[in-house]
């Protein structure tokens, strides 16, 4: 068994597995923060136009602010999933390498 080659393959597999998640994280986060900015502006405009009361706006702005915590929680799941997939992909490579070296599927 070529340990250096196996280690490189393990790292490559982990990088690919984690990379897919990184794209999701950056798109999702960027989109949510852009939306939040627009929402704050729209609520302010609606109060200025007397479409809603300042008390309503206060409740709604609080809801918008609180909901960012849920974005953080969803991103935490994404980060954990990335770590899980990266480690498991690397272990899968190791398992295949051990099986190949043993010439039998022992793992």
């Amino acid at each position, binding site marked *: 068994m070529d340990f250096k080659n196996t280690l490189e393959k393990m790292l490559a597999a982990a990088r690919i*597995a984690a990379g*897919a*998640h990184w794209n*999701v994280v950056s798109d*999702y986060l960027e989109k*949510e923060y852009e*939306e*939040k900015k627009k*929402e704050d502006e*729209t*609520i302010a*405009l*609606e*109060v*200025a*136009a007397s*479409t*809603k*009361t300042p*008390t*309503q706006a206060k*409740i*709604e702005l*609080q*809801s*918008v*602010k*609180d*909901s*960012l*915590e*849920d*974005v953080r*929680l*969803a991103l*935490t*799941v*994404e980060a*954990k*999933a990335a*770590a*899980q*997939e990266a*480690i*498991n*992909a690397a*272990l*899968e490579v*190791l*398992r*295949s390498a*051990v099986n190949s070296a043993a010439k039998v599927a*022992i*793992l």
Partner: protein
Amino acid sequence: MRTRNSVWIARRVFSLLALLPLLFASCSVLFVSPYDEVTDRAATDLVTKTEIFLVRYAATTDETGQIVRRGKPYDAEAASFYSEARGAAAAMLLRSEQKDKNAEEIQIVRNLSTRYDQLEASHRLGPITKTSAAGLHRTLRALVQVQLTKKHIGTSKEATSASASNS
């Protein structure tokens, strides 16, 4: 004496070798609870019901914040919707709490109930618009995002296993 020692060492080596496959077989980590189709479906159903409600009750405004299409004021039907939505969230919470490694989803579902409270509080004070539900929408998107992440892990795990067994 020397023979007994050799036998003892051989036994230990053999036991370790026999345990090696078990060690590797159990070597996969789990940081996120597995995908649950029932929770995913419940979240999708709640999103649909919420959107139908908002189409009927939320006013539409133009870029200056003026109403272009009137919504409906808070009434008994709206009160019933908010109660049902909170009930659906409570049912989802009950299921989510049964799973390990699921702390984030549990918290999102708890917060979801609060978002319905906040929308209802605003609705009781006056007409709601699409932006009134902005926080609720973000929390629902977060819940759906978690389901997609879990589904992706499940799918890619199956794909990895299939490709590994084919090679």
